[in-house]
């Protein structure tokens, strides 16, 4: 346990030191100005020539050629560089107004930290919601399979086969056709739900953009939970653990010894499955669930990194101003790499802290489950 926590801390320190080193290697804006060609800057700032006027510009080059007849190529280069400098004054993002705080100033750090705390808030909320919903959905799927429910397509085909049987009376045929239609519609509904769950956040957000504001915090939380395939993947992982656990020897022994194994009881109603503190008393599923939950703890680590990826995609792709990942993208655009490094470091630390927390949690969970307490 201590070894793992030590490794996490060393990792954070290593990345911090590396990024500080990279930060110090970056040339500052002032340094860039110093490096600009002094001669070009001198002529450009002289105010004697209007370089936007091609007549004056050509005249200037002629004067240079008169004074320095042996450096005609150099003179031409100076005029060319003055032109370049003029263009840069209009196109260089660093020269744009609006970027008041250039580089990593104290004000910038404070502003980024406040954005970071909002990010952390969203991250924690989404993490809890996904964790809870994924377990609930996985249990529903597991229970439905135990109840012997078929897929909607299979149901549709079966009802359709009933309808196609020539020996069946007309009213039974009509009933089968209705049921086939009903199953088909439910299948289509499920597929639409799946489409939503697998859609990248930006597709869903742009789809709803004309109907209501998509820049709010609740919408961002909803997007992070429902899109990018996070919920469905995590739910499937938990479902796999439930299935694996249900095949364990102790489950079979418990069933043979008479523990309840019937899944068609009211305790598997949706309202019980969706309870935050799920309990399935005196049923074998209680043990399957608790053991799967224990094994699922380490999956949270994977979820934490994936969730950060999801949130970054949402904030960057939707260009939501005032959020940390939008700020990151803007600073990449304006080549403010010191700010970029600072934000990347914060995101890395978030993942590492979450990993440390999960390792600690798992360690204590293990002690209880492996009777070491």
């Amino acid at each position, binding site marked *: 346990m201590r070894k793992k926590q030590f490794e996490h801390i060393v990792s954070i320190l290593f990345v911090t030191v590396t990024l500080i080193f990279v930060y110090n290697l970056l040339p500052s804006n002032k340094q860039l100005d110093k490096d600009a060609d002094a001669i070009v800057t001198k002529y450009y700032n002289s105010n004697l020539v209007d370089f936007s006027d091609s007549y004056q510009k050509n005249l200037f080059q002629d004067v240079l050629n008169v004074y320095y007849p042996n450096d005609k190529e150099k003179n031409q280069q100076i005029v060319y560089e003055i032109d370049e400098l003029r263009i840069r004054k209009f196109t260089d993002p660093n020269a744009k107004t609006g970027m008041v705080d250039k580089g990593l100033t104290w004000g910038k750090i404070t502003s980024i930290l406040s954005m970071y705390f909002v990010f952390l808030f969203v991250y924690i909320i989404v993490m809890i919601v996904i964790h809870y919903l994924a377990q609930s959905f996985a249990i529903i799927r597991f229970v439905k399979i135990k109840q012997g429910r078929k897929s909607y397509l299979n149901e549709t085909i079966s009802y359709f086969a009933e309808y196609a049987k020539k020996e069946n009376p007309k009213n039974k045929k009509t009933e089968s056709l209705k049921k086939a239609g009903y199953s088909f519609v439910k299948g289509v509904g499920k597929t639409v739900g799946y489409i939503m769950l697998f859609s990248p956040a930006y597709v869903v957000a742009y789809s709803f953009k004309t109907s209501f504001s998509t820049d709010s915090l609740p919408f961002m939380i909803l997007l992070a939970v429902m899109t990018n395939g996070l919920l469905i993947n995590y739910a499937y992982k938990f479902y796999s653990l439930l299935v694996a656990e249900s095949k364990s020897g102790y489950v079979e022994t418990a069933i043979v010894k008479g523990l309840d194994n019937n899944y068609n009881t009211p305790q598997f109603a949706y309202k019980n499955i969706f309870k935050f503190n799920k309990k399935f008393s005196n049923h074998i599923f209680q043990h399957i669930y608790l053991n799967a939950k224990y094994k699922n703890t380490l999956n949270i680590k994977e979820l934490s990194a994936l969730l950060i990826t999801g949130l970054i995609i949402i904030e960057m792709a939707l260009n939501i101003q005032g959020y940390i990942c939008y700020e990151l993208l803007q600073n*990449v655009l304006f080549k403010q790499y010191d700010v970029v490094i600072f934000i990347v470091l914060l995101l890395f630390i978030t993942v590492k802290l979450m990993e440390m927390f999960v390792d600690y949690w798992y360690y204590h969970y293990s002690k209880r489950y492996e009777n070491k307490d």
Partner: protein
Amino acid sequence: MKTKIEILKQIDDQNDVKWLLFWLIGIQVMLVWNNLFLNSPAFSLLKEAFFNSFKIGFIVIVFSLLLSWGMINFSLYLKNRNNWIYHYLFTFVINMIRSIPQILGVLIGYIVLTFILNNEMLKSEFMVIVFIGFVISFFVFLEMFDTMENRIEQFKKNDFYPAMLVSGISEYRIVNVEIFYKNSLGYIFHKLISMFGVALFLQCSIDFIISVGLSTDVSLSNFPITLGSLLAKMDSKQDILAIGKTLTDPLYGINLFFEHLQGISAAFIIVFTLMSIFKISNGFVKRISR
């Protein structure tokens, strides 16, 4: 009739085959529809984006397989040398890569790619695609690495592994031939399928982000068109926005399939492929664990 229904039921039981068929049919129908109703420049662009995205996806899985296989063997080499410092350093670096959010890693890779393109160090479009594939695979290969490591750990728990070791068989042969080749191809293939989905998702997302947020900095003409960058085009975004309009005006929905095909098709390919890959991969793992 009965035979047909039996065949359909058989296909329904095999989720991987069923979804592969769904995907193939869905994409074919979409392409035929686009051929009929989408203007030809946009259709060519869509086809190019589709093929480029899939090319990158395949390159990612090839690189990931090579990287993870190489790393597993390197880790084995370090363990065999009994030099714990090197092995500890190796694990440390691997865990550090694992903690970098994939999208951030890929974004940094794209910044490097922009620098390379601006300095004309890479000129061929295919090489750009290979570079993108490599960058993505560098941040996703650990999924395959973990699968391979888990397989080794599982076999180490059996008598199989030590029995072979005491018989004088080289550990490299046990791992590469006996475990990976003879007993894990199904698991590796399953992981490759799901990694293809991850690669497609990351690539589309980063291309979308770059096209939306960094378009003044990154010269998009140097980047191959992919489904993500196609979706970020103004007309595609208008097409996606039109979906929202159907919520308030349901009759407008009919226009989606005639007037807004470019964006809708790009989004459809991404979402439908991601969903199908999930289903195929889960169906496949069910098949190999039977």
